[in-house]
């Protein structure tokens, strides 16, 4: 027996833990928190064993096909002879990467929760049930071997997200945010569902392996284009891409641990994962890839602008997440476009590399923010300040996270972001759109550096505020995960230099192994590398000047009329939140009211009208019943006479 054959157990542990905590959590210590931790660690252990085996490729795939993929499946539902669905697991390098990210980050976050959620009392049971359920279904999503199974888990992670955003359901804002998150992503999910139905009816299967072997042409190709765009619609919703991005900032109403795990490191990555998983299909349809790249680039830029002036520490991180997810989409779109034309698939690798790095540094940033919020009991950065002396570990680890996301070498964020931008630049040879997207990406890199350091300076430096007075460093259960994540955030780039490099492990079609020296030359021989380093340093410098040295007053951003308008537009999220609300309230609800009135007055009116007509006519006719016996007799005689006369006339009497 080989470890990989037990891979199906990976999601089972957290799911069993969820059921156990749900049923018996009241009697368990910490509301079942320890059970959740143990289950997560068990998953992590199996994941580690599986990943080792995937990386050295030393497994027998169950079906005898040696293509680096391990698949186990069985029939789930047979609809008709030609329509059936499977349930199973599908493990390749991409799955392995996601498994590592998900199980590692979730283990750390759950450990961190033991302290962070310690004061929630009775509610802890619900928290650990839901978060274990989330870990289970997220791992299931990653392992799925067909689109339907993926979709089922996809919706279930959405459910967990809904439940956990609404964790403090007694707060109206949390309840609203949860609802918004579910419905907005649901719009994307409907597109996803349409995409699945198109693929299924066209190709009669939803299994990854069968679909990836398809080379569509003719009508099938146009259906495939629509189908992939629709599937990407699902990714837009889940990964909070423009124009369905607006739910993610609101989702910060949930506990910070939830934001770190679900809304930064794992679930929102599911959209990127979906596109990466569907890459063999997407690369056949350049139109779709162009859409992916444009949406990704626009999202990256737009979200970064909104992060510039937000005073809420978690919302800045949320916008930053959206922006970074945009980067990943951009890399996938550009990389796929490149592959379609030149058979170079580095874009795919760079996107996945960024996905992994981002999971580490964004989880780190969120957990640091959680640590700060835990200490000062506010999320408003204007009320913080001067915390770096009181919270040394938090402040230092967050600095590492900020350096990493800003793309300052040698932290890992630099390497992946640089690869992403390099891919887009290379694709610029094929279409001017990518040149534009490249400059959007560079501008985003500048803004990222600026707002991250704005956040760091505002929180940790300057004069201590009232809220910071009683602040103290968080307990070790919280700081140890921070330190671990900081090490990963700083050093995950090292995978570039071991083995065949990241591209030799996670790749599309052909591995592109590079020796350490080649990696370095490939990176630093390109002039555009220096451009991204320079803008990052400029961003940090500007933030330093404005928020640390205060040599430039931050009032410049609101002093003139134009900048004031800009500021308001950004705070109002370009009016998206208001537009969503107006659409729901005015258009949908108004229409619904109208239909309700139509139902009451027109349709039911007609029904009641019939009843009224019959009742009325009965009222008139009953007056013939006078009670006069002689009148009745006269009518009888007249009637009989008429019958006889008629009979006589027609000759019936003869």
């Amino acid at each position, binding site marked *: 027996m080989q470890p990989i054959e037990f891979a199906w157990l990976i999601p089972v542990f957290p799911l069993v833990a969820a059921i156990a905590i749900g049923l018996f959590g009241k009697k368990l210590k910490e509301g079942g928190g320890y059970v959740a931790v143990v289950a997560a660690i068990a998953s992590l252990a199996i994941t580690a064993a599986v990943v080792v085996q995937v990386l050295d490729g030393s497994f027998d795939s169950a079906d005898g096909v040696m293509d680096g993929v391990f698949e186990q499946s069985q029939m789930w539902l047979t609809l008709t002879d030609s329509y059936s669905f499977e349930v199973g697991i599908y493990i390749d390098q991409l799955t392995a990467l996601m498994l590592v990210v998900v199980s590692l980050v979730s283990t750390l976050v759950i450990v961190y929760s033991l302290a962070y959620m310690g004061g929630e009392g009775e509610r802890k049971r619900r928290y650990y049930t839901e978060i274990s359920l989330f870990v289970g279904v997220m791992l299931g999503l990653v392992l799925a071997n067909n689109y339907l199974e993926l979709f089922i888990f996809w919706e279930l992670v959405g459910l967990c997200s809904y439940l956990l955003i609404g964790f403090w359901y007694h707060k109206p804002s949390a309840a609203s945010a949860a609802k918004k998150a579910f419905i907005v992503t649901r719009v994307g999910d409907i597109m996803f569902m349409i995409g699945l139905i198109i693929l299924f009816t066209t190709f009669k299967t939803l299994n990854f392996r069968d679909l990836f072997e398809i080379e569509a042409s003719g009508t099938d190709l146009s259906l495939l284009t629509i189908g992939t765009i629709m599937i990407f619609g699902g990714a837009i919703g889940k990964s909070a891409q423009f124009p369905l991005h607006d739910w993610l900032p609101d989702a910060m109403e949930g506990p910070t641990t939830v934001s770190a795990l679900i809304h930064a490191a794992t679930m929102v990555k599911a959209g990127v994962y979906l596109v990466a998983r569907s890459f063999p299909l997407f690369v056949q349809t350049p139109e779709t890839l162009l859409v992916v790249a444009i949406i990704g680039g626009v999202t990256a830029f737009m979200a970064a602008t909104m992060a510039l002036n937000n005073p809420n520490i978690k919302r800045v991180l949320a916008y930053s997440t959206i922006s970074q997810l945009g980067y990943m989409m951009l890399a996938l779109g550009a990389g796929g476009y490149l592959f379609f034309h030149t058979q170079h698939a580095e874009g795919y690798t760079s996107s996945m590399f960024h996905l992994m790095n981002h999971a580490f540094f964004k989880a780190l940033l969120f957990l640091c923010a959680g640590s700060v919020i835990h200490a000062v009991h506010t999320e408003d950065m204007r009320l913080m300040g001067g915390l770096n002396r009181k919270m040394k570990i938090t402040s230092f680890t967050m600095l590492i996270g900020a350096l990493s996301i800003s793309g300052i070498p040698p932290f890992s964020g630099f390497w992946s972001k640089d690869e992403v931008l390099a891919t887009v630049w290379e694709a610029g040879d094929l279409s001017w759109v990518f040149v534009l997207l490249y400059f959007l990406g560079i501008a985003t890199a500048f803004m990222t550096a600026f707002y991250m350091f704005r956040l760091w300076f505002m929180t940790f430096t300057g004069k201590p505020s009232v809220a910071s007075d009683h602040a103290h460093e968080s307990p070790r259960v919280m700081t140890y995960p921070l330190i671990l994540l900081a090490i990963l955030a700083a050093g995950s780039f090292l995978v570039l230099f071991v083995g065949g490099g990241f591209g030799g492990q996670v790749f599309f079609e052909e591995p592109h192994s590079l020796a350490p020296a080649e990696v370095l030359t490939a990176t630093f021989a390109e002039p555009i590398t220096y451009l991204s380093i320079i803008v990052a340093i400029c961003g940090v410098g500007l933030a330093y000047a404005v928020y640390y040295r205060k040599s430039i007053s931050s009032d410049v951003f609101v002093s003139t009329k134009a900048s004031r308008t800009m500021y308001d537009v950004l705070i109002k999220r370009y009016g998206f939140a208001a537009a969503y609300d107006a659409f729901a309230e005015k258009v949908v609800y108004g229409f619904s009211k109208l239909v309700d009135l139509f139902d009451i007055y027109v349709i039911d009116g007609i029904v009641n009208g019939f009843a009224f007509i019959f009742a009325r006519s009965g009222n008139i006719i*009953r007056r013939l*019943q*006078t*009670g*006069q016996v002689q009148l009745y*007799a006269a009518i009888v005689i007249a009637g009989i006479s008429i019958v006889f006369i008629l009979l006589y006339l027609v000759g019936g009497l003869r």
Partner: protein
Amino acid sequence: MIPIEYFLALGAILFIIGAYGVLTKRNAIVVLMSIELMLNAANINFVAFSSFYGDVRGQIFALFSIAVAAAEVAVGLAILLALSKTRDTINLDEISLLRW
């Protein structure tokens, strides 16, 4: 031998007189009497056809209907008696209980 048409004509005339009485008279006793006339018109027809065809069954029927008529008058008068006791009238125009 008197032709049968004469009997039938007599029956028809009696029947019409009876029907006229039933429909127009206000006094319930008179209406009851008119009903008797109509019954007897039918009896005349029975007897006439009986002798015409030489079949006694007609006479049997006539006797039978006379007996029924007697019973009917008894019931009818009893109802009228009850009516006049409870409602103080046997004017049919004032008795319209089975009205809407």
